[in-house]
């Protein structure tokens, strides 16, 4: 599992020490559920983020 405290500290997120008891297990669970899904993504799959260019705009 990732060291969330260290990540937060490195990013200077200012998360108080008292919050970690609840936050770390939630992040561990999310990571454990999400990480295996990544191996299922075919290489050519593009993200579903919407970005549009309108030719009439400057």
């Amino acid at each position, binding site marked *: 599992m990732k060291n969330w405290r260290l*990540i937060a500290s490195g990013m200077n997120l200012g998360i108080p020490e008292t919050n970690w008891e609840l936050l770390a297990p939630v992040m561990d669970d999310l990571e454990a559920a999400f990480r295996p899904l990544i191996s299922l993504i075919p290489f050519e799959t*593009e993200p579903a983020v919407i970005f549009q260019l309108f030719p009439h705009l400057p």
Partner: protein
Amino acid sequence: MTILEAVRLLRTKKVSSVELTQLSLHRIARLNPRLNAFITVTEERALSRARQADEELARGIDRGLLHGLPVAVKDVFSTKGVRTTCGSKIFAGFVPERDAAVVERLEAGGAVIVGKTNMHELAFGVTSNNPHFGPVRNPWNLDRVAGGSSGGSGAAVAAGMVFMAMGSDTGGSIRIPASFCGVTGLKPTFGRVSRFGVMPLDFSLDHMGPLTRSVRDAAVALSVIAGYDARDETSSRDPVGNYLAEDNTSMRSVRVGVPTNYYFEKLDPAAERSVRQAAKVAGELGAEIVEVTVPDIAAINVIGRVILHAEAAALMEPYLRRREDFGPDVLALLDQGRLLAATDYVNAQRLRRLKLQEFIRLFADVDCLFTPTTPTAAPRLGQAWFEFEGEKEDVRLSSTRFVRAVNVIGFPAISVPCGLDADGMPLGLQIIGGPFQEALILRVASALETASGRLRLPEL
């Protein structure tokens, strides 16, 4: 009284818009101290609009089915000159200089907005137990939550304060309060209703829709608010459907999918019974009931959480140094978003595309899906956990378990009342349709409502 019943009274001059608006305002004044459904009541503005609506009707100007009817909007919808707090301390003093597109459309349709409804802080939660404006209480039982994040809208409709209240739905925030409060809640297809002027929680998951006392009323409201808006990049040019079709009693030729996996695990047996009973009624009304295996909903929920947390945290980044101005639950969710890697967000959006394709394939075999909206009825105020088969589950994760995935794929879904649990609290049926198939799910929901009768709302 429903919208369509009020319209009849208004058009036959048995009642005026001013009278309906005064009734609404009196009811809000009487009940809001108990329910806390409204953050702001716009009495003066509403009465002025109601007078205008009456004058127009007298001159033969009819703006449609919402003309002259008191409605409300969740406090995420920008209202020109009226503060729009998003249920937060951060935006407590924000007074927009323009109306949201939905507000424009409602007012162009003659609706009378009587106020802004209370909600979960920043629309980021399922209880509407708001630390800054106080908790919204459930009209069925004041010790229970109204659901969230559009809890004030659900409570206001269930308590008869307004005929319709607008909500927003990023991970179930219209359907959950609809289910918990025993009313109808419609989340349209992504792009069907403009997001312009709505304070965002998540750019790619936010949907706008109505909460009403009947399915037909939801159809009326959608007819008014749906349509292309160039100011919202994600707005669809797909033609707006006829949501008020005459035949709302038959389900002939409709294929109703009932999942064999995921949706009937870890839930109150009463919720399962009520959904299966609804499927039985649908079959009696002519629908073909098809057992289906749905894609991995647990995985889609995880994908949705990664997207939501990352986008919400990005949005709120400039304010996160003011930690004391956030409620602890919302702050914890935003912190989760800040801890995610950029690669996780991109991969979640890639997975989203794959899961969307799986759902499109599923909908080749069915026209809609029947599922419970939530695994249980409303939890108590302050309740942190549900327990299923000896296992604890966080109230937020439990309440969003059956609804969040629909935001990830952007399909439309409606929650309609579907019986009561052992404590007499309402349960919801979720009907999920294919992209832009709002007319179909409204027809199916309306047929069920006609066959089973509308849920009698609590006396207050």
